[in-house]
């Protein structure tokens, strides 16, 4: 009846509230397990088109290089479909070995004791990571997959928010690409005219509003206390800033256009904030329309901050030890340096390992495709969405109130007040 909601495209933040339901997942003596019999496991994913082809290739490589292990890819449609399918399978006890999952899904899975504590695997002599290998994975991605010190997944396809801008417009106006909010505001006022609105936001503006709060130096949600923190000076400042842009007519949301890539590729907006995963969707039409464009890191205010999103791979825990081991080996394989580079090149997602970023192969790729090199610059100050139980409802409730501000129904203060209440209600459930 439906396809995936855009809401799920963001990740979740915070650990904390989930209790450690991992006693039985404690696998001892993983090193002692050998896969001697053929093992077949399934990996459910939501990758389609070229992405699926790339994933298939990596998987084929894995299957070819691992005797006795066969990983079967199962495409389950979009993310929404995948989530539904996992829910159904969990209910029917027909879960696969592996699935792609957002962090807030994983929170629910942990809550219901579906997925496996990966710590023993990481620590395994024989099959695990060395410290170097493990730390080679970007910190932010590792954190995203860790709940109370327990690792439940490995990052797979990760993207971040970027600023897309129209090179021609900036050159004509003689403007530098803004790096701070003030510069951006100034530029916006200059760039806006009868045909062009300077700034574009995707429709998920209020869902992903933590980006702005963080940049303003504030906190959206406190992972430790499980509190909503936006109703603060910084939050108010951020909301006022964005709201002013919109109300003064120099910024707009995608609204009826669906995605901002459309108006941007038409030259209707001078810059917009969107996912790095959207790069190919801008490239083709912009090229046709003769739009010269580029990407830049997000402007900052009190601090730099960039949200990272995208799914991880997680392992269900109803499996036999052999199956788990096989699944683990596949997870590992999926993000080894070569594969994460290959994957990033094919899909436009970010490599998840430092070694990949440092590799010559990647460097030369980025040189050829400079727009693809911006995302990684934000890794050092990357953060992720709240991962609290009920995160979806909580974020949604807040976003609804923020939307009212942007729609002019609330003042900033009223909006924050209402958001605070809504958050408290959802978090208190």
């Amino acid at each position, binding site marked *: *009846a*439906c*396809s*995936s*909601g*855009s*809401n*799920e495209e963001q990740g979740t933040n915070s650990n904390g509230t989930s209790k450690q339901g991992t006693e039985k997942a404690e696998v001892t003596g993983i090193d002692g397990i050998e896969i001697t019999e053929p093992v077949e496991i399934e990996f459910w994913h939501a990758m389609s088109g070229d992405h699926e082809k790339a994933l298939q290739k990596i998987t084929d490589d894995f299957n070819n290089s691992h005797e006795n292990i066969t990983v079967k890819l199962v495409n389950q449609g979009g993310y*929404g479909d995948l*989530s*539904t399918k996992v*829910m159904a399978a*969990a*209910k029917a006890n027909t879960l696969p070995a592996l699935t792609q999952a957002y962090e807030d899904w994983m929170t*629910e899975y942990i809550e*219901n004791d*579906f997925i496996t504590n990966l710590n023993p695997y990481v620590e395994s002599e024989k099959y695990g990571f060395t410290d170097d290998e493990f730390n080679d994975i970007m910190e932010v991605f590792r954190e995203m997959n860790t709940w109370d010190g327990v690792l439940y997944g490995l990052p797979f396809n990760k993207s971040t928010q970027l600023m897309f801008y129209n090179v021609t417009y900036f050159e004509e106006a003689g403007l530098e690409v803004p790096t701070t909010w003030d510069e951006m505001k100034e530029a916006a006022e200059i760039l806006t005219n009868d045909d062009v609105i300077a700034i574009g936001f995707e*429709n998920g503006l209020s869902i992903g509003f933590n980006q702005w709060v963080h940049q303003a130096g504030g906190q959206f949600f406190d992972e430790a206390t499980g509190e909503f923190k936006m109703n603060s000076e910084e939050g108010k400042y951020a909301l006022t800033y964005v709201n002013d842009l919109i109300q003064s007519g120099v910024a707009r*949301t995608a*609204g*009826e*256009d*669906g*995605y901002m890539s459309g108006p941007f590729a038409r030259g209707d907006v001078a810059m917009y904030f969107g996912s790095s995963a959207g790069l190919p969707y801008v490239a083709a039409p912009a090229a046709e329309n003769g739009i010269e464009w580029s990407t830049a890191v997000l402007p900052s205010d009190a601090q730099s901050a960039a949200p990272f999103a995208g799914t991880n791979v997680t392992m269900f825990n109803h499996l036999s030890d052999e199956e788990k081991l096989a699944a683990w080996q596949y997870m590992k394989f999926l993000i080894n340096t070569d594969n994460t580079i290959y994957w990033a090149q094919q899909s436009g997602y970010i490599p998840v390992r430092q070694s990949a970023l440092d590799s010559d192969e990647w460097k030369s790729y980025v040189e050829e495709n400079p727009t693809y090199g911006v995302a990684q610059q934000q890794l050092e100050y990357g953060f992720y969405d709240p991962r609290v139980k*009920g995160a*979806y*409802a909580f974020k*949604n409730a807040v976003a*609804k109130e923020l*939307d*009212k501000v942007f*729609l002019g*129904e609330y003042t900033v203060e009223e909006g924050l007040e209402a958001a605070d209440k809504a958050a408290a209600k959802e978090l208190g459930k």
Partner: protein
Amino acid sequence: MNQKPTLKDTLIGYSYLLPALIILGVFSVYPIIKSFFMSFYADYDFFKDIVHSYGFDNFIYIFQDTEFYKSLTNTFIFVIGVVPASISISLVIAILLNSKIKFGKLFRTIYFLPFVTSVVAIAIVWQWIYHSEYGILNYFLGWFGISPIEWLNDPKWSMPALIIMCIWKSLGYNIILFLAGLQNINPQYYLAAQIDGASKFKRFWHITVPLLSPTTFFVSIVVLINSFKVFDEVFALFNGRPGPGYSAQTIVYYIFEKFYNEWEFGIASAAAFVLFIIIFIFTLIQLYVGKRKVNY
């Protein structure tokens, strides 16, 4: 033929029903009953199917939830906006298509197209039609001096936009039901009415409308039920969101979100139960009216 049924009649009756009853029983009635029970589970492990406690908590929750009321209101607005218009427009078109016209086959095919065409395509076209700047709807309205309406960006207009699209989309489907129903009318009555001096319109009003009443009755029940359950169209028209500021959130959207996004199975079930009761009441009213007004 006009007697109380005997045991034998009953056995015969159920033997005819059996295939349908098995399928519907297993795949509709049983899960529905289960989910109705679920609405009374206050504390429930959905996946392991363990009920820790029973109660009215879920109902208390939804009746305290302003979102729920809002989606109820929106749903009612939707039903009121769609049902009468959709039925009457499709009835008129069906009549026109049913009369002996040139290119009848072509016209009928065209009117059926929206029903076959993919929902995605339909939604995209409507997004364009509604576009505040480039859309043809505002363009036409401009002829009458009406200034551009932000159909999809303005919370005030999102319900009207949804309603218009849904009326449009439902036409093909209703038309085909009406076309089938029209075949059930004996043309003799039109001749008689012509003799009695009834103009085309009067024939429509005094013959077609009453004699089509079984079909109209059916269509109106189905359209009403489906309108109460509107979901896909909301999802498609607003790119997976229920309109700007949740302004077009309907009750099934609410249920969907509670169930699939928030994993609040009990609350979703309770809301579904409430929806069921509402539809049920309306259907009862329709059945009651139908008993008196439908001519077989």
